[in-house]
């Protein structure tokens, strides 16, 4: 438990990471370091996109599964890792 907490803190402290959100099964962010409204917005929007991406991957090969979905935008990069029951969202600005 402590290790997980530590890892999460480490991730948050990495260079360029703007925020992290952990979303539970119902789409409610349960842990985040962004403000609540932004977190809720990200959670709601990315949930559907992740489900669609996962469905696409599994449609092509049901034995395959989605591990990480990365969306590189102009300003930063959004990374979503879906799992059974939760979503881990990290927003990073690699600042090249």
């Amino acid at each position: 438990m402590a290790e997980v907490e530590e890892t999460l803190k480490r991730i948050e402290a990495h260079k360029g990471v703007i925020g992290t959100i952990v979303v539970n099964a119902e789409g409610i962010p349960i842990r985040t370091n962004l403000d609540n409204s932004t977190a809720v917005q990200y959670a709601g929007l990315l949930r559907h996109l992740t489900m669609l991406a996962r469905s696409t991957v599994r449609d092509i090969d049901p034995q395959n599964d989605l591990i990480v979905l990365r969306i590189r935008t102009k300003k930063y990069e959004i990374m979503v890792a879906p799992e059974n029951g939760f979503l881990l969202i990290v927003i990073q600005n690699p600042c090249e």
Partner: protein
Amino acid sequence: VNQSTRHTNSVVGFSSRKSFSLGGGSKVLEKSVFDEDDNDVTPQPLYQADPGAVQAKASRFFVDEISAGSASEQTTATGSFTMPFSRSVLGSSRISSQSTIESTNEEIEDTFTKQDIPINFPGLVEYLVHDTNSISLLPEFLDKIQNMYESNLLVLLQDKEKNNQYAEVCRNRMGNDKYVDRSMQTLNGAAKNKHVQTDSMAMVDTATTVTTWDMYDTLRGPEQDNTVHNPEPEKVEYPEAVMDTNRGAERSVSVGTSSLKEEVFGSSVNAESDLQLIMLSENFQQCLLVMERNILRNTFQPKLAAYRQLPVLEDLGSPVKSQALERLWAFSCELSRGCSVSSMAWNKRNPDLLAVGYGEFDSSTQRAGLVCCWSLKNPTWPERVFHCDSAVTSLDFSANNPSQLAVGMHDGSIAIYNVHSQDNKSPVISSSECPNKHLGPVWQLRWTQQELSITGDEKVEALFSVSADGRISKWFVFNNGLDCIDLMKLKRIHNAKKKAGGNNTEKKSESVLSALTPGLCFDFHPTDSSLYLVGTWEGFIHKCSCSNSQQFLETFRKHFCPVNCIAWCPLSPDVFLSCSSDWTIQLWKQDRLNPVLGFTSTQMAVYDIKWSPKWATVFGAINEGQLEIWDLNSSILDPVAVQPAAPGVKMKSLLFATQTDCVLVGDSDGQVTVYQLKNFSVGESSQVKLWNRQPCRWFR
């Protein structure tokens, strides 16, 4: 009796039945007589049969007008009728042999030959002609087919003819005696209404989207979740392998279509406990790991790409052709900061995994040692951290069991750790209870494959160690611990000059002082694993064999300070390098007792030396202040590339990367820096030429 022989001779058959049953071939025996106008003048019987009785005859028409011989097979109507009603269509028209031919005929089975068959009304007379003799020739399928074919043709022609005749009839209809109008009446049934009532059927609209994975999931059933994350346990690439996913699996319900929509993760709605549950699940840890690596990849991507030797866009302004070292990145974290790196080793199976041992052994204070396993994918945090009791002095990964890491420590004990699982923090085996354990720091460890095992499948691997108590030992697992047998004891050898005089005194003093000298390094021959070299505190290098534990095969003397490292050249046989605290590096050949070449660049003790695995003439050496890369092909006087250490930091350990042109340097600050060798492109064949060239100059 309106009978005109002409008219009614024709056999008219307008049959609605199109099918022909060929019951059997039958020969037509009755002949018809035609006059020269092709009029049928067959004499008619005087007796006319009852109109109600039709003599059904089986006959067969051959539409074979061409063959004259068919005349014998034409049938004629033996009985002809003129029906009181009209529409004996064809009777009115020309009677010709053709019409008789073209009349329909039906072949009726033998059973019908003598029966009376009612006439088919309406309106058209059906004449059936049959023969008395009917021979059924059952096997004649071919004939039947032909007959069918011909009868089909016949039908065609007859239909055509019928059409013509009908047209004729229609024309002749008006005012013709033959045609009488007649009316008919059909019975109309009385209509009756009846009500029926049924239960109303409820209609429900359902729709679902079916996807391939949906069907797959339903088929797999609930055990899918339990097995979906099972990796192979032997993979060391993911040493943080997911062990027990059952804990996470039982909390999620995946049933068919609902697998994505409703993931009932625990039964609680409380966000806090959700967080707890999530944090504890293995999947989350895996997720975090993946995510962290992704983040780091963003940051380190150019460096990692350079490491992997992906083509990097060079700055156009600097076409540097000289051989240089470029710093890529450094493995460091807070745990390791301040600890001096003592040894490094690559994993034998996974070339991205690096084990680094930290330990401060120069100073008198004994700090606890640390072993970190770093992955290339995460230079900021080690994948595994093992805390050891005392300073770590040497490390090696096993080749047969790639997840076993042997660690030698300053207090003389050797521990074997399993890096595979993340939970295991304590060594699998340790030699601390062994009575034969080393009494001094274990300066070097090596797993070496020796002779083939009995089955011959894989080589038996044994762990060898050399330590400051002067023993070279071979370790094996015994009674849940390690035990060793001594391969060699490093006896102190005195200098040849001193030995010349005063043997007795020397022997006496020998017995008083410890007879063993600390061994600092050793290396096994790359091909002949029973041969090895040992470097000692005295500065001697002994060549020994595993089979001979009493004597050295040879002794190489040149250094007068402790030999810090020995390395066989992996690409060129019988060549090895040694470096020592006397500031020199010596290049030896196995059969010469004197070194072939010596290198000195700075006046500092050389701590570590390694051959490049890729180029036969390149080796790297570190002394306290800098990293030097020597290329024997270019220059034997100076290193071709020099990388000074950061100020205040001493370099301690050196390692070449096996698959890329990179070199790793560990320093006293706990950082392992990765440098890339740029523009090194030395052919391997140059080594051979070197030996031809050099010995004449340096031979002593």
